[in-house]
């Protein structure tokens, strides 16, 4: 299955791209594992807001085929 992944703010800089399409074996994958796969084995940084299909959720959420997963680090500028 294919999952669309989007990176925002400093996460986009860190990854060097705004989005990915990650192909995953099986019917479901947790956000944590999806992040690992997309980032080449890194741990998901603490203080990251996760949205699946633009709804706030946690890293244990099971992602399904066709879902869009977005990662939002906090933004502080004012």
């Amino acid at each position: 299955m294919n999952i669309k992944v989007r990176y925002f703010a400093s996460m986009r800089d860190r990854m060097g791209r705004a989005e990915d399409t990650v192909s995953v074996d099986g019917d479901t994958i947790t956000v944590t594992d999806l992040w690992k796969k997309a980032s080449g084995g890194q741990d998901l940084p603490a203080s990251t807001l996760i949205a699946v299909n633009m709804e706030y959720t946690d890293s244990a959420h099971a992602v399904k085929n066709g879902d869009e997963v977005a990662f939002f680090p906090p933004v502080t500028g004012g």
Partner: protein
Amino acid sequence: MNDKSMVGLSHEEIQRYSRHLLLPEVGLEGQKKLKSASVLIIGAGGLGSPIAMYLAAAGIGRIGLVDMDVVEESNLQRQIIHDSDRTGELKTESARRSIARINPFVQVDTYCEKFTAENALNIARDYDIIIDGADNFPTRYLVNDVCVILGKPNVYGSILRFEGQASVFSAKHGPCYRCLYPEPPPEDLAPNCAEGGVIGVLPGMIGTIQANEAIKIIIGKGTPLYNRLLVLDALDMRFREMKISKNPDCSLCGNTPTITALIDSQYYCGITPKSGEYRMDRNEFISPYELAEKLDNDDVLLVDVRSPEEHAIFAIENSISIPLQELTARVGELNKQRDIVIYCKSGIRGAKAVEFLNAEGFARVRNLDGGIAAWAKEVDREIPGY
């Protein structure tokens, strides 16, 4: 929003606010509510500028401004409440003068001090709505915590580069900021505008959204941004909306809160407000004078770990550019047998680079104390501040 039935509008005010009075959603009643309302704006900077200017023009009765900074040249590209001739002036005073010119009917109360766990409740208590235009995490967490404790809406906005966020946090109606981000993040995950840059119109776009939300809450019309986080990508010009909800485990507004009083978060999360507080072994620093001498006499490799954009603005002569994020990948370019001096803008990124290089087995590496900012002050006065 006290005594809203008591206030009246003068003939002059009726003329001034006529386009509001014609709106069914505002009308005379709504305009009186605006006049009776008090709004506290944290930060008189990028976001605070349009927020204060539009709320003043809209006829908010009392505006409070918290900021301890003075106007700098580098603020003028986006902080439009401050004029070119106000550099060096307190931001609160500059903003007060601008507001008086926009609308003399507005009462302005200024707090030229740091918003801290000690003074926050006293400052915020008398206001109906708090608007977060802060530029740092400790203040943002404090604003959030104060609002939850006092039960006031927190009209939130933040910006970086071309991206912005806005929401209205209210523990009564939905999540607070800590429901989304329980603790302040590690520094490198969240650069501020001074490090990452920001496009000048962005605070105008996000700040006006915040001002509009505050007005809606005061007049009680429309649908506030409760339970929604609006995310703007101004580069591709896309607004996205994320559904957010209260976290039952939130340490502040959840079912079993563990935070029951205000805390200054920089004291427990390790965020260092100033370069001077990122102190390591003194042997790992080199003063600007010492470096100037060393550059004249010895063989030393000078490495700039700032961004390529910062390097392009101005760099110390004969330095090479290896941005901090690329250091891990490019460490092979450096020779362990050579004396190396690292520099950044003010010393924080340099300290991180030295720490990393020490761990990689570099023994002859030092950090320019105070960065290129100190170098500009003490050695090369031709370098502009940025």
